[in-house]
């Protein structure tokens, strides 16, 4: 989780990622930000994110992102 928070901070600094649950709904992360994030987490956690995963439920908070990463790691 720490590593994920660092990646998020690196892509879009100045957001309270530990508590924010509306990263997509409030347009904090746009489609370009999402793609940068996907590229980074694929490298960092050795997973493959498919287009089907790019939905608000998976990207609205650091917690939901972490859940997706864990799930994808299990499926690998």
């Amino acid at each position, binding site marked *: 989780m720490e590593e994920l928070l660092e990646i998020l901070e690196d892509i879009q600094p100045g957001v309270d990622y530990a508590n924010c649950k509306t990263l997509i709904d409030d347009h904090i992360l*746009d*489609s*370009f930000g999402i*793609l*940068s994030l*996907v*590229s980074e987490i*694929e490298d960092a956690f050795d997973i493959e*994110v*498919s*287009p*089907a995963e*790019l*939905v608000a439920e998976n990207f609205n908070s650091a917690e939901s992102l972490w859940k997706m990463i864990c799930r994808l790691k299990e499926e690998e």
Partner: protein
Amino acid sequence: MAYHTIAYFAVFLPIVILLYQVFPKKIRFAVILAADIVFFWLFSGKLIIYLVCASLLTYFIGLWLEKIALNPGGLSNKLITKKKRRVLALGILLNLAVLVVLKYTNFFGQTLSDILNVFKVDWTYKPIKFMIPIGLSFYTLEIISYLTDVYRGTQKAEHNFAKVALYLSFFPQTMEGPIARFHETADALYSGESIKFDNLKFGYQRILWGLFKKIVVADRIFPTVKYIFGNYANLDGSIALFGAICYVTQLYMEFSGCMDIVIGSGQIFGITLPENFRQPFLAKNAGDFWRRWHITLGTFFKDYIFYPVSLAKPVKNFAKKVKKRCGRNVSKFVAPTAALFCVWLSNGLWHGANWTFIFYGMYYFVLIFIENILEEPLKKFTEKLHINMESVGFRIFRAIKLFIIVVTGELFFNAASLKDGFKMFGRIFTNFHISELISSIFQLKMDRYDIPIVVVGIILVTIVGALKEKNIDIRRKVSGWVIPARWVFWYAAIMLVIIFGAYGSGYTAVDLIYAGY
């Protein structure tokens, strides 16, 4: 029987509402389906066969995808995905083939003929007259979204054919969308819930607002747009610019007005159709504008072209190579830019088979690409100069810049050909005399009554939009007033549309622009 005609909102729609309410809940879906068929038939007659075949194909391909996913043969995950991908490709290609043949054969034939003539090959393409069913471009995208979602596993394959047919043919969406997702409408359309008084009231109020935008404002501007775009070569550059501004106004009033009628119609039956506009002229830049203008088309391209292309293996591998050589600051633009190009090429082509539309798509591709590249440097630059990007002055500057971008794009979008677009655009810079526009303003097919009505209409729509941006809904506010005040308000609104609407003698009926795409 377009949505803004009396035949639709005062005859067809009330009859459907009445029949829907009279029939038992279990078969109400059949009333909607029958209305869909009648509505489609009135525009395209026997061409309804295209829609029937597309619905059947979509239904069976969906079931086929589900059968593969259930994996009765005990195949490996890799093999299942491969099989599913082939079936999805078959479903999409068969549907796209119809769209491509009917809409683009003449364009590709003519382009091929032009290219061959350049190489001195004497071959002339003879255009074929195709009959295109109404709404083909819209329901084809809905089919792609449904099949892709079933393939991805985010949507269950539908076992009830009626639901698939209802989803693809709901009559308020037939002409201009919005492009809905299966889960947004199918179940609600099938459920046959009773019509609620609030839905009926709010639905018709929204239809009234849409009619105001369409027949009071847009249709009064139409003759001016037609005249200026048809005669720009003999007119001053200032008039050409005025024509382009009028077209932007007409297009917004008409398309968003039509969406009000469509969404209002859906609301009556308890169907929440997705919004297509969210105050686009209050956007921060061109990218933001497209998140507020024709929203359902933009989200379709984002979900089914932008993300899949960005995450495609060859694109990701290329981005990784660039990252090794040039670093993350450069590589992060590779995948989004490749995907952005595909999105805007598709956007241009979707609007029609004409180079003006392809140019329009590429115009926004370049603009949004530049915006993305400059976003960070510009942020640092404004911070260094202590420029407050939320100050009134900066917001006005931003709004003017966006308006220029939109007007320029729409000028090419509405030009008869790319050559005409460039000539008209050129006149604005080479032959611009504002005095010409002022002296001939009443000779531009809008008389002394049209102009004040249009201006007041634009002001009203702007005020309502600004309030909406602040989450203030006029309809909800009015519904809280005492009954006499409410009646006076809505009676005045109805009279406003009846008295000031551009219809009857002296006005020709204006077709819906997006129904042609």
